[in-house]
């Protein structure tokens, strides 16, 4: 329902207009903090040398020239530009106007450019590899956050995304290894994720157990189950049960030759293409179809939905199950998506980052996808920087998504408002 929230300032009554415009100093303050951070880097930790951005792979049809920028002058330029953006946002807020999204996006890109230029000084940054890896790392996060968005829009908090990813990864590995068919593994992963989602739904909707409790416990349960079967069954029979085949890369004929975009977006595996479709479908479904209207109604105001004849608990149950199957599909990335054997707790907290992406993306599938991409970028940046030898300890890069999420939920960045009935069981009276 973010659309209605956005429209609220344009209410018909002009009297109410003054009070409903949300002018918050949070964006300028956050801008200021990040500008100061970069300023501190420029002033106290200058890096000599040039930074080279490699924009093409060696065997691309269309070769782009390398982009070389002198590190320190570029950094200072960026700092000045960022200071300008901060001042502009402060001006906007002072004159009781909102800070537009494009300004935030431009600010973020400039900041990343400045930071990359500083961190990569004296080295050359493989941009294609960086972006390609970011997208790959973001795949499970995006599937997980789509699952979170559907669940929470229907009014069920899905903390069990981690468990669903793990269940999907495990089942996909086993089924694909046994049948030697990655597609069957994909289907099995969806079923496994759906089962976890159904348990979550059954306990939280039928037995009114607190959704957060069920989610947390389900995560532990899935970790326990998969680790148990891994040590007891998979490890001794690794050759037959845990050598999953991997999806081949399928370059899309024309699109894959577009410079930068092609190698990053269109030379991926089936799982990634499914992800594009899933994002589009979930967005379209939630906001343009009857199904989406019902899901949102059930999550925002279950009593009203019940009054017009929507079966609240049945709607919730099946949507949580659907969310589980989407998360299970995301879990395939860990095993058959990358051709890696299953291992204990191999999702390593991806479900929780996906949850963070849901909140950071304000319960909107597109924004949650962007947030997941940002988190994927942050973790892959850490990989790239540790290869070229960056001055920032890798732990701080890994910490970044979590810190950003804390800022996001604390409301320093933008506004986050959950569906009204999120996390509350509907008890029909």
């Amino acid at each position, binding site marked *: 329902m973010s659309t209605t929230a956005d429209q609220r300032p344009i209410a018909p009554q002009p009297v109410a207009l003054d009070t409903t415009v949300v002018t918050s100093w949070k964006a300028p303050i956050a801008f200021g903090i990040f500008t100061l951070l970069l300023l501190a880097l420029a002033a106290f930790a200058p890096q000599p040398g040039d930074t080279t951005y490699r924009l093409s792979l060696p065997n691309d049809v269309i070769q782009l020239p390398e982009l070389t920028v002198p590190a320190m002058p570029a950094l200072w330029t960026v700092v000045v530009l960022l200071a300008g953006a901060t001042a502009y946002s402060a001006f906007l807020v002072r004159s009781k106007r909102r800070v537009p999204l494009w300004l935030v996006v431009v600010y973020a890109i400039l900041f990343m450019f400045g930071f990359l230029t500083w961190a990569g000084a004296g080295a050359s940054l493989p941009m294609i590899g960086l972006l390609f890896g970011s997208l790959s790392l973001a795949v499970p996060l995006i599937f997980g956050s789509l699952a979170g968005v559907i669940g929470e829009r229907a009014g069920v908090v899905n903390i069990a995304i981690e468990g669903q990813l793990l269940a999907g990864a495990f089942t996909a590995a086993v089924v694909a290894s046994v049948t030697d068919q990655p597609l069957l593994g994909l289907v099995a992963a969806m079923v496994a994720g759906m089962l976890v989602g159904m348990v979550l739904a059954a306990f939280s909707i039928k037995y009114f157990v607190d959704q957060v409790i069920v989610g947390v416990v389900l995560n532990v349960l899935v970790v326990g189950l998969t680790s148990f079967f891994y040590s007891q069954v998979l490890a001794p029979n690794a050759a037959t049960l845990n050598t999953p085949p991997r999806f081949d890369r399928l370059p899309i004929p024309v699109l894959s030759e577009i410079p930068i975009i092609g190698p990053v977006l269109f030379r991926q595996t089936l799982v990634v293409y499914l992800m594009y479709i899933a994002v589009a479908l979930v967005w379209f479904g939630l906001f343009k179809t009857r199904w989406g209207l019902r899901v949102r109604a059930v999550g925002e105001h279950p009593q009203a939905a019940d009054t017009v004849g929507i079966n609240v608990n049945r709607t919730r149950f099946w949507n949580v199950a659907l969310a589980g199957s989407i998360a299970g599909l995301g879990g395939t990335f860990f095993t058959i998506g990358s051709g890696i054997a299953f291992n204990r707790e191999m999702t390593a907290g991806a479900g929780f980052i996906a949850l963070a992406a849901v909140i950071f993306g304000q319960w909107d599938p597109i924004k949650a996808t962007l947030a997941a991409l940002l988190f994927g970028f942050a973790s892959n940046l850490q990989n790239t920087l540790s290869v070229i030898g960056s001055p920032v300890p890798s732990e701080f890069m890994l910490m970044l998504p979590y*810190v950003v999420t804390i800022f996001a939920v604390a409301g320093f960045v933008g506004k986050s408002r959950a569906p009204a009935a999120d996390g509350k069981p509907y008890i029909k009276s």
Partner: protein
Amino acid sequence: MSDPTMSRGDAPGANQPDADVAIEEPAAASPEQGAAAEDAVATASGPGGGGEVPPPSKWLTMLNQIATGNAIISVLAVLLALIVGAIMIAFTDEGVQETIGYFFARPGDTFAAIWDSVAGAYSALFQGSIYNFRRDTFLAGIRPLTETLTFATPLIAGGLGVALTFRVGMFNIGGRGQMLIAASVAGWIAFGFDLPWGVHMLVALLGGIVGGALWAGIAGVLKARTGAHEVILTIMLNYVAFYLVSWMLRTPGLLQAPGSSNPKTPAMKETAVFPYLLGPQYNLHFGFVLAVLATVLVWWILSRSSLGFKFRAVGINPNAARVAGINVKGMYVYAFLISGALLGLAGVSQVLGTVTSGFTAGIDAGIGFDAITVALLGRSTPWGTFAAGILFGAFKAGGFSMQAAEGVPIEIVLVVQSLIVLFIAAPPLVRTIFGLPDPEGRKKRTRKNVTKEAKAQ
């Protein structure tokens, strides 16, 4: 800065329409429900069941109370979880898999193999956690019980911390981060300073507790000031703490042992280590005494102090508490500070009691998450948490010996633990499985009688 509409919905300060508040209450108070329901059953089923109906016999009432009470649900939940665990052990056992091949020829073999695997595993669990019959003397045989108490120590302390936030209507899933920070502070004091015996231990203990409290306090302050959801905050703070501690562990001059390249600290100094309670042949250390003291303290806070009264008031109904003049936001902060201190105690008892030879970023050993299940199993009461902590300690101690003796992976313990909590959280499910009477159904029937009588008049 603290605009309530920016919050994630259920900040108590948010101006929501009344209809919403009505739906919100069961959700906000649900971790409380267990504890509250226990009292309610105890008090309500006595006088409430009467009315015009002739009073049933004492034995019947008592039987009913036992069958519908929470104690029996807890016992049955443990039983059910153990049965599921047994099924998993049996079906992954090699002997069972071999014999099942000729099941229809000789089914007896399969049953014998199932019995062997399950009985072997669970007897190893028992002998690893309570009493080992294979030892000659009582003193050697009882060693597993002291192991159980050692494993239970951080679980009790951590469980109390989580239980306390449950009583205030909040979740603290940040046990991992709070334990890591507390362990780092305590460890840093314990290996980096030279202080006399006793004083050193106390300073390290206090440092760790304050560290844990402050780390949890971040979540408390952010929740109180901005209305951010504490579940998300604490989960995120877990990862921040993990990476922070990992970085400190591999940075010379901070926590890394000098002259080593491993991400590990040097050993704790003798002056700071918790003394053994029963002599050096048992691992049980002073931390257990602290856990008992913490239980008493939490019991006192919750049921005897005015702070605890405010905590419970906020937990049951934050809006009513605010109207009554209680500083709800202040209570959130205090609850997180105390909760973090208790999880800090869990972290300190790990570094100063259990693993004194230096620690890594895995020092929390999943206790921060186990603490949640402990608190849930203990229904958020101090002594219930204490008992649940000892039960889970027994599972842990026994799980290790089960793995060593029977080759059953220790992860089975995770499965059993989480199933216990799931079953306990859903009493109707357990009642359905065992065909027990439903206390709600009984109430409904009496209510029907009352309406009938009212119509007759």
